[in-house]
């Protein structure tokens, strides 16, 4: 086990300031052979360590279809993330273990309309899937991305969203919680915009959602109201994890190990889990 806990050393290629408290770190494993064999699916996560400070779990926010690097978007929330933000610079080394966990059901959603509902930093795992799907555009039907943030400054991946907007096959709907002077898009919380503006078709549609717990809670209510079947709603769970290997016991919810059986679950699966997340 101890060897499984040893991270691979990665170099930070680039740091992108997404919002005042979110930064995206573009990473590359120092050992070229390891980088070559490092592959992941959208939705999987890695254990990111700032050596000497500790490990944190982050999802990979880019798609393996974009080769040669992978992204982790990190929001400053606790002690280690604060250290990550304050100490890391481009060119420095960090440790990475993974990828771990399951991934979005790529095969299941093939040939379906896709509705991505993201809030705040919750767009990070979706971004990986969106990139993947855009790179395999022909496998899927309509794309709708609904993304909300508290303020326009809290929106992640601004440049990439602009790119998506330019893509004629992708429909992008943005919203912020409260009106702002220069803001021209929607105003209102995600579930409200989902019901009032997006009004998605239910037929042949899969919803993939991720965001802060409160958003998820009300989005699920909205989706229910709109008539989506729980099995068509896919989300990813956030849980305290440490080993990522299904051993350390932290991510247990009932007999489920979120780090192995998750983090991607359908709403149907979540419904039967004990309420401990």
């Amino acid at each position: 086990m101890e060897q499984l806990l040893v991270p691979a050393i990665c170099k930070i290629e680039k740091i992108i300031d997404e919002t005042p408290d979110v930064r995206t770190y573009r990473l590359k494993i120092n050992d070229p052979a390891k980088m070559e064999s490092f592959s992941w699916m959208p939705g999987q996560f890695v254990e990111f360590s700032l050596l000497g400070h500790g490990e944190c779990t982050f999802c990979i926010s880019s798609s393996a279809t974009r080769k040669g690097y992978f992204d982790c978007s990190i929001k400053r929330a606790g002690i280690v993330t604060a250290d990550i933000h304050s100490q890391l610079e481009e060119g420095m080394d960090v440790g990475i273990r993974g990828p771990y966990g399951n991934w979005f059901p790529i095969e299941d959603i093939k040939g379906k309309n896709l509705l991505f509902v993201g809030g705040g930093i919750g767009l990070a795992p979706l971004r990986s899937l969106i990139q993947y799907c855009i790179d395999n555009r022909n496998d899927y039907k309509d794309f709708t991305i609904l993304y909300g943030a508290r303020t326009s400054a809290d929106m992640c991946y601004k440049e990439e969203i602009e790119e998506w907007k330019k893509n004629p096959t992708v429909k992008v709907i943005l919203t912020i919680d409260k009106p702002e002077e220069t803001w021209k898009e929607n105003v209102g919380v995600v579930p409200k915009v989902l019901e009032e503006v997006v009004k998605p078709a239910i037929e042949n549609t899969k919803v993939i959602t991720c965001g802060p717990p409160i958003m998820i809670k009300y989005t699920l209510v909205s989706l229910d109201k709109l008539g989506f079947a729980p099995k068509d709603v896919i989300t990813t769970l956030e849980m305290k994890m440490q080993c990522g290997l299904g051993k350390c016991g932290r991510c247990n919810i009932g007999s489920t190990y979120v780090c192995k059986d998750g983090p991607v679950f359908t709403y149907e699966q979540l419904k039967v889990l004990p309420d401990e997340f």
Partner: protein
Amino acid sequence: MNLIFETDKAGLQKFYEEIIAKFETYAPVEKFEKFDYKRVSKLEECNPDSPIPSTMSVKPLFFPKTAKVMKFQEDSSGTTVSETDEDPLAGKRVILGVKHCDARGLQVLDEVYKWDYIDTDYKKRRENTIILSTRCDKAGTQCFCTSLDYDVENSDAHDVRIVNGLDGKIYIQSVTEKGENFLKENSSQQSVVGSQQSVEEIKKHYKSFESSFRLKMNYKEVNEKLQKLFDSPEFDPVSSNCISCNTCAFICPTCHCFKISDEKIKDTGVRYKSYDSCNNGYFTLMAGGHNPRPAKYRRWRQRAMHKFVYYKERFGVNLCVGCGHCAISCPVNISIFDVVNQVAK
């Protein structure tokens, strides 16, 4: 796989002495008025027949309280990670005087360690270890191993078992193939090969052992009931006098939660893996303050359910082995036996 030697006290002593002289041997050693499995070089140092409240399980010999994961070194050119020193527990070794429950604990732990990612260190330690168990003659006040989902009498969790017969006879019986080979190579010259009669004798003796249990429960019923009792209000009162220390988890033979922590001095550091416990309030505390199990009863529920329901559901074996270590060590004598029975009443 049923090689039986019949011997007496002196013969057993000789047998042990031989092993200790030949192998890296661990056995219960008295320390601060309790027994703990330690490396021994002389039989006098240890007591393979240690009395039942041994407190410490054999777990630390496979899953130590703290282990180095790696070392790392930073300099201006970058960071390098290096393997740690050789695993001190990976060599060929023999453990004497293991209780049946302790041995069963390892068997139960195997499941989680071989699931999906295989813990190679643990596996190596297990493979390289011969476990000689001593069967208890009498149950302790907190023991309930016979009430659970495994057959204590026919347990194959150990390689060799030593059973005290009546009238001073002692039987040394191989249980696994590994044990049989070991016995063949290391049988004491004084030992007499036992017969079918000794098997009967061992069984007979087991009956009297079984009847000495204070605690008994219907495992199947409890397990089934508990599956539906996640929301039981009983978890609160049963855990009311818990003081949220981590004793039960740290001394439990099957608790396997751990934490990873780094320690760095100047530019070099070590990553450690150490015990952690779900009774600890910070265990599931996430950065940003969200904690799925903030209250004590929720943590106790997790503990009880994990021991009696979840693990069974996932891996087919009950995580609790009924050793009673937790109840003995608990500063306020909470017994998981009482907790599950109370909830599943």
